[in-house]
């Protein structure tokens, strides 16, 4: 039997507000343990929460960017459960009246656009962290993170493959970074993801029994765990078995999922409206104001790059995937005539070095103007394309102006015909075999000879000129 995979994602994203959602403590990541807290976020007896307007604003912006309908009336509820990282023994969250509903994200699948529905976006507070002291028989509690505002984004079960889940997450991250409500750093926990996955016979409109996956530390882990779980469930179903509804934990090292708790062990959170907080009544004008203040989102920007700059769709996709990268690109293009050349440099050289060094785009030490200056130096023959790559690398390492680099390192292109002729003669003398090949009609042999001249000049020779000189000498 053929099966269809059904996946839904629950993503938690920390908002970039300066202070926590219900008190004035800083949201800054890190810091000495238990220093970013006060009686309110510590859940001392008698304290009361007061909602942070900025958190509501950021959540609305996120929901708008995800094409959601914003509720006119929303409220906070208490989700009750005991855990040492949860000082009040309840999390202030939203239950039946979330801030926003019914949105979507578009991803590209097989060259087409697929819409993944978003069921809801709601606001809640983050919990603290437990530090487990191996073998000491106790754990320590750090409450710095307690009360950092989060939004939970719940997708519809519209995702059909682990690949789509991965694309959805990337798009979600890009959108939230664009509107600057979250930095979405999974390694710092500012983006976290749980998944639901089930299989059903192809063509069936009923859902199969779902399994929830937790402990997913990266987008890659999300994809791998879904691939594993898809396989595991298919094998069980093919052998006539039944899937157990449960929560499973992804074991990154072993590459497998392990049962965590069954449906019977699931919590009854006893949600009820938080009597300490007044309902959130959202003014339509405010929503309109926030909507009109949203920046150009990645899909729109990509479309513009294709239409306005004539970039291939692939280039536009890669560049707009990061707002910072797209901003960099656009600054270059505003000062340079050929967007495609800029795109080539940004995509291959710049992203190459960033990937290689593990740095972020905002850590690039030079300005878009510097790249433009370098491109113009290629155009006017001051440096060769090959040397430019060396210059570019140097710009990355030192942040220096490309002109200064070329000057200091003596990288100016050799376009002096006499000087090049001298070197060419020497190369011809030293490579009789290639010379003979060329004269016997092997046109390609000239490439080797050009290469030898470039080597002699440590790449500084003007390659077109060398080609011309060699041909003249040999013919």
């Amino acid at each position: 039997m053929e099966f269809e995979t059904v996946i839904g994602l629950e993503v938690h994203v920390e908002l970039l507000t300066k202070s926590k959602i219900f008190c004035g403590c800083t949201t800054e990541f890190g810091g000495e343990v238990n220093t970013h807290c006060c009686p309110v976020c510590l859940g001392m007896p008698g304290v009361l929460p007061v909602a942070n307007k900025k958190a509501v604003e950021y959540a609305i912006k996120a929901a708008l960017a995800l094409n959601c309908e914003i509720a006119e009336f929303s409220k906070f509820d208490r989700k009750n459960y005991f855990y040492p990282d949860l000082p009040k023994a309840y999390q202030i969250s939203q239950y039946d009246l979330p801030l926003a509903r019914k949105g979507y994200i578009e991803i590209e699948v097989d060259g087409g656009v697929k819409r993944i529905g978003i069921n809801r976006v709601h606001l809640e507070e983050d919990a603290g962290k437990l530090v487990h002291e191996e073998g000491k028989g106790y754990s320590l509690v750090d409450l710095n993170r307690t009360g950092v505002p989060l939004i939970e984004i719940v997708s519809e079960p519209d995702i059909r493959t682990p690949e789509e889940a991965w694309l959805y997450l990337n798009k979600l991250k890009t959108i939230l970074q664009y509107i600057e409500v979250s930095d979405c750093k999974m390694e710092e926990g500012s983006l976290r993801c749980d998944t639901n996955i089930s299989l059903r016979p192809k063509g069936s409109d009923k859902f199969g029994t779902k399994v929830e996956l937790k402990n997913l530390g990266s987008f890659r882990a999300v994809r791998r765990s879904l691939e594993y779980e898809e396989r595991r469930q298919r094998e069980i179903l093919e052998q006539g078995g039944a899937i157990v509804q449960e929560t499973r934990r992804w074991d990154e090292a072993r590459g497998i999922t392990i049962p965590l708790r069954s449906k019977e062990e699931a919590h009854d959170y006893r949600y009820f409206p938080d009597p300490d907080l007044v309902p959130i009544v959202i003014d339509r004008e405010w929503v309109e104001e926030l909507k009109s203040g949203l920046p150009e989102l990645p899909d729109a920007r990509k479309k513009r790059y294709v239409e306005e700059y004539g970039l291939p769709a692939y280039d536009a996709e890669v560049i707009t995937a990061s707002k910072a990268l797209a901003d960099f690109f656009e600054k270059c293009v505003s000062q340079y005539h050929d967007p495609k050349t800029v795109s080539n440099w940004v995509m291959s050289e710049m992203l190459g070095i960033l990937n290689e060094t593990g740095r972020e785009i905002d850590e690039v030490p030079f300005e878009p103007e510097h790249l433009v200056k370098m491109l113009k130096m290629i155009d006017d023959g001051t440096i060769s394309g090959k040397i430019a790559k060396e210059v570019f690398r140097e710009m990355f390492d030192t942040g220096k102006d490309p002109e200064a680099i070329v000057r200091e390192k003596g990288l100016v292109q050799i376009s002096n015909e006499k000087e090049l002729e001298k070197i060419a003669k020497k190369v011809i003398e030293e490579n009789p075999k290639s010379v003979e090949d060329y004269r016997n009609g092997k046109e390609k042999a000239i490439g080797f000879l050009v290469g030898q001249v470039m080597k002699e000049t440590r790449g500084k020779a003007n390659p077109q000129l060398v080609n011309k000189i060699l041909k003249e000498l040999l013919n």
Partner: protein
Amino acid sequence: MKLYELTIHEVRELLAKKEISSEDLTKAVLERIDQVEEKIRAFLTIDREGALEKSRKIDEEADFSGALAGIPGAVKDNICTKNLKTTCASKILGNFIPPYDATVSKKLKADNAVILGKTNMDEFAMGSSTENSGFFITRNPWDLERVPGGSSGGSAAAVAAGECIFALGSDTGGSIRQPASYCGVVGLKPTYGRVSRYGLVAYASSLDQIGPITKDVTDCALVLNAISGWDECDSTSVNMPVPDYTESLVADVKGMKIGLPKEYLGEGIDREVREAVLAAARTFESLGAACEEISLPHTEYALWAYYIIAPAEASSNLARYDGIRYGVRAAGYGDLIDLYKKTRSEGFGPEVKRRIMLGTYALSSGYYDAYYLKAQKVRTLVKSDFDRAFEKYDVIISPTAPTAAFRIGEKTGDPLKMYMSDVCTIPVNMAGLPAISIPCGFSQGMPVGLQIIGKAFDEATIIRAAYTFEQATDYHRKKPVL
């Protein structure tokens, strides 16, 4: 002249004329405590040194501009006081010293009041007799064999016994008014949202309010002035101008329309209590007010709905007492769950456990609609009864409690009987309205309280009615003999 017997407005005059110092007054009250506290046991914590030091400082600075400046008061032990133990009369918070002040504590301090100590109460304000204190019971100054009421029994008993000039209590279902009634003093529960709850250890958040317990209505207005107002730390406090309540101290109820709900005078109400209230109605009429019988038809459901909503909120509010971060942690636990179980089993008393279980059950999945949601609907109906009545009447009067103070141990074996002692006060909390209890007579030698209920944020009118009644009677002048 015994200083400890005086009211705020009386000592204010003496302080202003420099006839006494704050230290004299504080010492007099501390001496009174030394004399009678052994019998009454109103205080969980007495901050002798802190109080004396503060009074000396006030005398030195001679700043008596605050209405409560230099005047020793007591604070219920569920109101946080920075660096002063706040236990809610619970073993689980037996060692808890708050690192911050409740907004009302801050306001008292800003007014230069002298905080004498923290008063006994039913554990976490759950009870009607102060017998549920995790530490000891408090006795009624009028009859040491009787309860002072609850949950603010310590505050009411302390005021009645002259162990403080004024006190703060908290009222979730009658916890200020009922003990005020039992102890023959004045107690006011403000409109929900009038006084900040920040720093009041929550029992049932949608019902809790802090209010004054005083020797007369004038003092009540003075303390209410000091503690009222919007607070940015409490989203449920209301940002509305607060009138000067002393302006309502006018003996005039001419033309005032008073409703007398029949549901508060029927079955279950002690005959002498009913007679005292009806006599009070006649007094108001003789002073020019018009009293009419009215009906608040959903009254009988209010109590039962309250015992869903309050425990539901409590079950969540009290979940934080887990022995992890503060308070008492049980010894000899195994794993985490065991730590929770042992700490909470040993730390909470039986009534608190009963209400946590009731509330947890009422919020459980599958029962929410049948209990919590239904109770909220009843609450809306109770409120609309009052809304309708207040279209026609300025205030509503009733007994504060069905009986005068009962004997210690009389109702501890039957929680439902105990719950009935709040039947007249609970509907007021459910509707979020202000109400005051003032002395209006005696039943077998024990004080009886008259409840005057007002429109939301109209404390002024109930204070005026109460003041007028007080001026025309002398019940408030009667003191227990100790």
